[in-house]
Every structure is written in C-alpha cells, then in structure tokens.
C-alpha cells in the first residue's frame, strides 16, 4: 500500500503518545478522587456501626458525658457519651484561634503596611520555619516547658485545655499569618491612596480601609487555622492529660477527639463496640473538617460579591 496513505489512515506516534499521556494523567487524578471517596466510605461504614449495629442513640452519643465503652450502666447500655471529647476539641480550637488571630493579623499588617522590607526579609522566613516544625516537636516542648510552667502557676497537674491552647496557638499562628498576609496584599493599592489622600493617618487607613477590604481573606485564614487545630492529634495528645472527663476548668485534664483516637484505637478489637465508638469519633472529626471546608467556601463566595 501507498506509505503516505498508510500514514494518513493511522494515528501518528505523536497522537498515540498524546492519548496515552492524557489517559495516564487522568488516571492519577481519578485515583485521588477515589481515595477521598474511599476514606469517607470506610470511616462512615465503621463509624455508623455504633448506631446501627450496637443501637446506640445518636443523641446520647453526642450529649452524655461518660465515656467508658467497655462498661455498662445501670440499664445495661454501654456508656458512650462523647461530650467530653467534643467539648475538649472545640475548647482548644476556639481558644487557640482567639489567641492566635490578633497576633497573626498584627504581624500580617506589619508585613504588608508598616515595613514590607523587614517583613519579607525577616518575618517571612521566620513564619516559613514555624510552619516546618513537626507537630511532635511542639508536643515535646509543650510537655517539657508549658506543662511545668502551668503546674507551677495554677497548680494541679498542668495538663489540660490551657496547655493544649498554648501549643496549638503557636502551631496555627504561621498558617493564619501567611493567609492574612495574602489577603492584605490583595487589597488594591488605590484603596490606600484614596484614604491617605483624604487625610487619614496610616493607622486609620489600615483600620478603616485595608482591614475591612481584606476581611474575607483573613477570616478564611482563621478558619483554616481552626481546621488545623481541630485535627491536630499528637501535640495535643501529649499535653491535654487524656482523661475522658468533662473539663472542670482550663487546667484540669481533658481529652479531644483526636487524643482519644490516637491512644485508643490500638487497644481495642476490630468490630467491638469499643472500637466502633472510636470510629464514630473519627467520623465526627471527618464531618467537622468537611464543615470547616464549607465555611471557607461560604466566606469565599461572600467576599467575592462585594
């Protein structure tokens, strides 16, 4: 057959390569989606078993405050009240966000408005290094510095929500700061010029104009930090005291969803109620991280419309 005709009728080497490349890259992305779906399916399957197989009341699970799945109460029902962990998790998350936000926003303003040169030369690397420090190292410092100091000042064991807040505050500080910096940098320059031209001082410009315009981005950063704090496991587990009790105050031993998971899942048998109850906690963790995601999207949408 005519070689030219032959070549025209079949896809070229280049076209075959193109198809193969596109297919391979598509398979990679499909794999990621598959992993996400599988994570949700597996965790939900095990986590829901507590409610469907072991017939635990969902409301009891969320609102009762005694957590000892191996023991049965007076009515013969296992005691799986996750409230202490839920309170602990939300407690450390909100407190650390409350402490971290003003400092992070202050640092971001310093880096974008007051001294960009110092900001990019000194603070930027400092923040990148803080992000890089592994969480177990934060936990170790919490254990060997923060806990003894709290014990010394407030009495008690030193373990508890306050120690967890301190550790998490330092952990989420760089996350919130760098996202706040991005938000403030995105505020158009002519906003500032307009305010200065009206006779506003630098602080008035920052407070009345730049911060207002950058607010959606800053909030996104704060929620990101909260999501990170909520999901952090080891550093918190090392300093929170790991007592599944409702915390009496900020310095009494407490626990979070993640701390119970890390210390518990290895000591229970797959398929038992103790184990299923832990998977329910994991499911709760998963749903909360999803909720944080939704909040971030919602803020993003709100910010866009302005």
């Amino acid at each position, binding site marked *: 057959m005519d070689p030219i005709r032959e070549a025209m009728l079949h896809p070229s080497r280049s076209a075959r390569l193109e198809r193969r490349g596109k297919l391979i890259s598509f398979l990679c992305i499909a794999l990621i989606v598959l992993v996400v779906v599988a994570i949700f399916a597996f965790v939900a399957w095990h986590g829901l078993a507590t409610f469907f197989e072991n017939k635990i009341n969902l409301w009891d699970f969320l609102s009762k405050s005694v957590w000892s799945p191996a023991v049965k109460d007076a009515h013969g029902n296992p005691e799986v009240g996750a409230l202490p962990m839920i309170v602990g998790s939300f407690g450390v998350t909100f407190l650390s966000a409350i402490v971290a936000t003003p400092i992070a926003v202050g640092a971001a303003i310093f880096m974008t408005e007051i001294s960009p040169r110092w900001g990019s030369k000194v603070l930027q690397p400092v*923040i990148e290094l803080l992000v890089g420090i592994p969480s177990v190292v934060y936990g170790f410092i919490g254990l060997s510095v923060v806990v003894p100091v709290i014990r010394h000042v407030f009495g008690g064991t030193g373990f508890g929500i306050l120690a967890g807040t301190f550790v998490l505050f330092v952990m989420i500080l760089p996350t919130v700061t760098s996202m706040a910096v991005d938000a403030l940098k995105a505020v158009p320059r002519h906003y500032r010029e307009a305010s200065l031209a009206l006779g506003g001082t630098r602080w008035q410009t920052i407070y009345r104009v730049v911060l207002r315009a950058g607010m959606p981005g800053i909030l996104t950063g704060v929620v990101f930090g909260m999501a990170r704090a909520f999901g952090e496991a080891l550093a918190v587990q090392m300093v929170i005291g790991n007592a599944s009790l409702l915390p009496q105050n900020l310095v009494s031993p407490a626990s979070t969803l993640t701390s119970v998971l890390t210390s518990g899942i290895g000591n229970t048998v797959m398929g038992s109620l103790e184990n299923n109850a832990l998977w329910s906690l994991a499911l709760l963790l998963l749903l909360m991280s999803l909720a944080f995601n939704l909040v971030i999207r919602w803020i993003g949408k709100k910010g866009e419309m302005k």
Partner: protein
Amino acid sequence: MDAKRADKLMTGVLYAVAGLIIIILASLLGYILWQGLPHISWHFLTSPAKSFEAGGGIGIQLFNSFYLLLLAMLISVPLSLGAGIYLAEYARNNWLTDVVRTAIEILSSLPSVVVGLFGFLVFVLQFQFGFSILSGALALTMFNLPLLTRNVEDALRSVSFDQREAGLALGLSRWETVTHIVIPSALPGIITGMILGAGRVFGEAAALIYTAGQSAPALNFGDWNPLHVASPLNIFRPAETLAVHIWKINSEGIQPDAAAVSAGASAVLIIAVLAFNLLARWLGNRIYRKVTAA
C-alpha cells in the same frame, strides 16, 4: 486621643507583635537546640534505641525515617505530576473538574490522624500488609498527594501561555509540549515544592502510628537483600520513625533518659527540616538560574 497619637501607638503595638513572633521562633529553636545538641553524638545517631535503660540511640529510627520518606516520595511524585498536569493542561471548566478540585481540597484538609486510621483499616488490615514500611509509605502518599498536586498545578500554570503556543505552533502535540517545554520551565517551582513536601513528610507522625507501627526491630546493616526479615530494605517490616519515636517515648516511654533522648531526637528532626528548607531554596534558585540563563 487624636488620630496622630493613635497612629503612633498602634505602630508601636504592631512592631511589638512582629517582635513577639520572632521571639517565639527564636526561643523554640533555641530551646530545642540548647537542650538537644549536647546529646547528639555519633553513638546517638547510629546505635539502636533501648526500651528500659539509658544510653539508647536513634539509629534505626533515623534510617527508617529516610527510607520511608524515599518510598513515599517515589510513589507520590509521579502521581502528583500526572494529576497536576491533568488539572493544569487538560481539565475543562466543568462540573467534573469542580468535583475533582473539591476532592483535593477536602483531602488536603483532612486531619492526618484520620488518614492514618484509613491506612490502618485498608493497608494494614484489609490488604494484610501489617504494620509495615509499605503501609506507612502509602498513608504518607495520601497525606502528601493533594499538596504536591496543587504545587505542580500552580507551577505549571505560572508558565506563560506563549511557551505553549510556541510548542503547539511547532507541531508538537499537547503532551509533548507539556513534557518538553512546560515542565522544564516549571521545574524550579516543582522541585522546591517537592522538597518542602519532603520536609513535611519527614516530621509527620500521626499518620504513621497505626500504619508503619510503633516498634523498630533490630536491623542487620550487613544484609541488603530486601526479602530478608532483618534487612534494612525490607518493606514489610514495622518501622518506627524519628517523629513517632519522640511521641512514643514521651507518652508511654519508660527510659530513664526519655527527656534527653527526645530532646536529642527533636534537635535532629528540626535540623533535618531546616536542611530541607534551605535545600529547597538553594536548589530552586540554582535551577531557575540554569534554565533561564539569568
């Protein structure tokens, strides 16, 4: 208070806040290095850990950390390259791409302990890999994939569109344009991101406790056959990493010198992460200079 006074005051406050952050980092690094460096010796870095007596080292944990990192990067780098290429070059603007992006976003925000538990369920129990390096590497891959993918996508997108048009105008297919033109010019960004990802993986512990395990059996460093049980290269042996070791001796260890060992190990971990950071900057700049002839 008049506006000028308020301005001066707040400027002072902002300087103080910036100083505070620097002090926090300096005291963190200072504490770790000051506590840890005196314990670091050749013996500490190479000898195995001891469970009940003082004087143990971190040799096996250190090797495990690097080996696990290598395996995890071997799996996640090609996958994230493929996924990043698809998102940057092929993905159309439709609902399917939206779903994919949302999935990646969710995966990147999942708590690492949940990723670890999923790895435990699937790789350790379902696939019966047991507590092993392989399970650990796969869990780390899941943890690392979304961030690396986003990094690859961003790096590819930052390449100007003229470059692609030039490639296509020369008769290259899209795939050839990507592999021969776009990837080489995006290489500095990709490599910087990969090294930073490696630093993150190196310090990760929560995803490994229930996948790579919490025990470090003795290794025979004279035996490099990957099929032997005591071989360092065996991927089916449990492998406690440095970060897991720090957690373990602090939460349930009974060594008399637990504080000293964890201070030393923390210092090694921090130094490694710092090295990854510096390497990422240096290599990124160097490759950038090389490919752009700047």
